[in-house]
């Protein structure tokens, strides 16, 4: 067991050490492309210029201010989207008839580009937080809904029989069987949803906002400050990665029972 643990730790260390190496390599390539193309800063700034702009935005507090606004919208959208999608997903998973009636509309709704209806949402719900949260939740909705249905439908019929033989009531079946069984798939949807939610917030901020990282991109473009655009984009990437990582972390803690033995060993270390 110890040897297995040791081997796995070694492989994980290798995996993590690759991240800074590829990061440094990317920055060197970036420098090289700027040098080779002799690009002016408004076309492609050097990593150094972007770094200096990042420090400046951090110093004057503007980056954190815009970052927290977008994060608030993303979290709000994620909460609303997960609640509505998982609730509806539960109903659809329980009723094939309801699914047959609703699914054409749900699938059709996914073909509507959010960027096209975002201006309408701003008109209907105002330019504040509400419209951004709705845009985020619309983007999050579909992956969560589908994963909820798949998760609930994946519960083996034998386990339902077992619960019924133990005289379990409807709530007990839901909380002790269906929810734990659906969680692994639901977390998969949540990970996708979290990254998509970031895109939703930016779409909303592009259309009408005076704060947030999407707004900061607009300002950067409007002032030909490409370094600022890069700072805002990297901040969005960081936010999406942080959300993805946090969800994976929660998933690992909550679903330890569902892991393969070797995964459990890794998680414990």
């Amino acid at each position, binding site marked *: 067991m110890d040897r297995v643990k040791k081997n796995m730790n070694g492989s994980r260390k290798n995996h993590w050490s690759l991240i800074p190496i590829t990061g440094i390599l990317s920055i060197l390539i970036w420098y090289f492309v700027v040098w080779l193309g002799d690009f*002016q800063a408004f076309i492609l700034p050097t990593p150094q210029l972007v770094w200096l702009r990042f420090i400046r935005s951090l110093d004057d507090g503007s980056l954190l201010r815009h970052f927290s606004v977008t994060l608030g919208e993303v979290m709000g959208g994620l909460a609303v989207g997960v609640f509505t999608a998982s609730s509806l997903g539960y109903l659809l998973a329980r009723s094939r008839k309801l699914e047959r009636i609703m699914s054409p509309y749900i699938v059709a709704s996914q073909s509507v580009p959010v960027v096209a209806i975002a201006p309408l949402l*701003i008109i209907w719900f105002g330019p504040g937080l509400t419209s951004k949260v709705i845009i985020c939740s619309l983007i999050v909705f579909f992956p969560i809904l589908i994963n909820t249905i798949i998760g609930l439908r994946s519960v083996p019929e034998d386990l339902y029989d077992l619960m019924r033989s133990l005289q379990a009531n409807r709530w007990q079946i839901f909380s002790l069987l269906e929810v734990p069984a659906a969680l692994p798939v639901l977390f998969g949807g949540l990970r996708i949803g979290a990254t998509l939610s970031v895109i939703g917030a930016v779409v909303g901020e592009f259309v009408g906002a005076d704060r947030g990282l999407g707004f900061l991109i607009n300002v950067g473009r409007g002032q030909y400050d490409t370094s600022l655009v890069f700072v805002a984009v990297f901040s969005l990437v960081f936010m999406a990665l942080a959300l993805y990582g946090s969800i994976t972390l929660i998933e690992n803690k909550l679903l330890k029972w569902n892991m393969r033995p070797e995964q459990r060993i890794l998680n414990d270390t």
Partner: protein
Amino acid sequence: MLLRNKLLCLLALIFLVACGKVDQSPPIEKDQSIEIRLPMGYIPNIQYAPFYVAVEKGYFSDAGFEIEFDYSFETDGVALVGANELPFAIVSGEQVLLAREQGIPVVYVMAWFQDYPITVISKADAGIEKIEDLAGKTIGIPGPFGASYIGLRALLSEAGILESDVVLESIGFTQVEAIAGGQSEIVVGYINNEPVQLRDQGFDFDLFSISDYVQLPANGIITNEKTISENPDMINKFIEASLLGLAYAIDHPEEAYEISLKFVESLAEQDEVVQKEILALSIEYWKTEKLGFSNIQAWENMQNVLLEIGLISKSLDLEDVFTNQFVE
């Protein structure tokens, strides 16, 4: 092997980027005519009638140009001209100062609009009788950037009102809907667009045009320093053709509208009376004794506004920013 392939792909990509940089030659000469892609800064619109007229009447082709209209963002046009990827673009005056602040070598060479076409629109019952009454009010703007924001700041500055004295609400480009839906009582828009639409919908409102209070450089044609030094003849011909189109559209609005129908796909389906009104209003902003000329006072005013807002950090040499040499 896989790593080697990846490295080769990367080198090929870098090579392509480098080639793209070296091989940039903005105007493409084809059958002795020069192909020009012209960034317009907005969607196809009746306001572009002078350029449609110049194409249709053959002013551009007689001057040796084949024009392709490009309806991308204004900022993209500035960046492309600044990078010498394109020779010309149509942009608003403030963009030239903002770009030069960032070291983008663009130069304004022809004033199309003589006055800044931005206006504050207040509902008749909003209680705004003079611009000083805007203090303490909430004003809907597309966002704290672009011509609407800069025009509003210039107007507030004339009235001695600070930005902190008003509440600016970013509503995107939904000014008409915001007024119609009751979300806003006061918005900022283009004088030849939102007011016409609101009037058509039966709304009563008051207008406070920025041009009544302060002169600012508005939409016009830009080029870059390299084109000015290497190909002034091409600029002369292009400006001459544009001015011919502008003059013809001013003198023949009915015909300009008919010509525009061929270039603006949805124009025929829109209310003809409204569209002709937009054209007539625009023409009022184009008219002047010397078509195409820029006024240095307007540029100084704009520079002062941008300095006050903090969008530029230092005074720029206005001789680098605009020139009238191609319209004389």
